[in-house]
């Protein structure tokens, strides 16, 4: 029996929020040039893949490009419409003017958002800058988890340096009570990402998207060849969480690929659901 899944990595770039200006931003800043689909399609993709809950990620690109993909308010409005289906994560560019504490209160806490998404490469900020460190401190104080892009950014206009997983070892040690999720298992710096997660209790790894072929090919390679299956099952069983990276990939393809890896049933359940619930503080 397939247990319900938590998808920790969904960009709600749906036609209800992506107008012409945002579509330009989606193409030029986010690098995604496919037409937005309606929210109904996202819900059907979740249904098709037995995803009971999705974490919707905002992305504040206001400092770089005066746009958000989508904004914190837009994420909050989708969550408000489907509270049992979605958890919302906001986004805040650390170089925004004003008090970070107040911005977090206004744009994350007051909107009912439960974590923060950052992508230093696309947003274009130094993840170890004073202002960024200040933001992590506020997140730790508020007990808000942080999900960050790590791994390849395909767009030459963005910094590859800011995508490196080892950066987050520094952050994890400075803020030991801040839960940090490193996205995409840091590919191609997979063992760097794993090293950071292994030695820091507060660091986790999402396996969203595919980089080396189809989702089946990629996850099988990642979780049985590049990293031996025994290592995944013994060392990373509480560290890896499932994410799709919709709409850069379809959700059913990613869930089916994870189920096809051949991991032990209890490990599969931990990755597809339980580890995410622990990070969200929603354990049953």
């Amino acid at each position, binding site marked *: 029996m397939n247990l319900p899944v938590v998808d920790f990595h969904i960009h709600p770039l749906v036609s209800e929020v992506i107008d012409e200006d945002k579509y330009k931003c989606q193409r030029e800043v986010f690098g995604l*040039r496919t037409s937005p689909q309606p929210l109904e399609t996202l819900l059907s993709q979740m249904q098709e893949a037995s995803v009971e809950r999705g974490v919707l990620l905002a992305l504040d690109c206001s400092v770089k490009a005066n746009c958000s993909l989508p904004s914190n308010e837009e994420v909050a409005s989708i969550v408000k419409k489907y509270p049992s289906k979605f958890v919302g994560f906001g986004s805040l560019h650390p170089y925004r003017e004003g008090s970070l504490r107040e911005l977090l209160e206004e744009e994350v806490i007051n909107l009912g958002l439960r974590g923060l998404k950052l992508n230093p490469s696309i947003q274009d900020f130094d993840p170890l800058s004073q202002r960024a460190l200040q933001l992590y401190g506020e997140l730790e104080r508020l007990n808000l988890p942080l999900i960050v892009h790590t791994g390849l950014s395909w767009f030459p206009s963005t910094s590859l340096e800011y995508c490196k997983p080892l950066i987050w070892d520094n952050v994890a040690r400075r803020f030991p009570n801040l839960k940090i999720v490193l996205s995409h298992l840091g590919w191609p710096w997979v063992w760097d990402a794993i090293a950071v997660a292994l030695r820091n209790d507060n660091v986790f790894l999402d396996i969203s998207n595919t980089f080396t072929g189809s989702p089946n090919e990629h996850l099988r390679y990642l979780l049985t060849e590049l990293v031996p299956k025994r290592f995944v099952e013994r060392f990373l069983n509480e560290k890896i969480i499932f994410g799709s990276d919709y709409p850069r990939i379809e959700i059913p393809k990613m869930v089916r690929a994870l189920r096809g890896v051949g991991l032990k049933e209890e490990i599969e359940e931990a990755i597809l659901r339980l580890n995410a619930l622990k990070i969200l503080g929603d354990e049953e």
Partner: protein
Amino acid sequence: MREFKVVSKREREIINITDRVRELIKESGIKEGLALVFSKHTTTGIFINENERGLERDVINYFNEAVRDDGDYFHHHYFYKDGRMAVNAWAHLRSILVGLNVVIPLRDGELLLGSRENVYLAEFDGPKERTLVITVLGE
């Protein structure tokens, strides 16, 4: 010529669009001629066949077997044009087997279909919102 949307609910699905096509023919006001139904998506197909639930499942199963999901496809690489990985070669290949359009004769403003014939959209990479085009020629 009119565009219309069909929203699929499943990853692989056969959707009967006959009634929608009939409505659009009626709206066109054309009595005698031809209707062309066309899909704008290379991971879908348009075909005519019998409206029978078992057969609809057989169609899906047939294409799943005819074109393997886990083949060694050149298409499965990063696609700069889209800004994402291309991971659906099987859906494109199934689309090629089906084709992207059908032409149906019209008489007295009605589709001249056989008693068992229905018009279907084949969804090979859903769920997605799809745009179809109907062109009605005649008088």
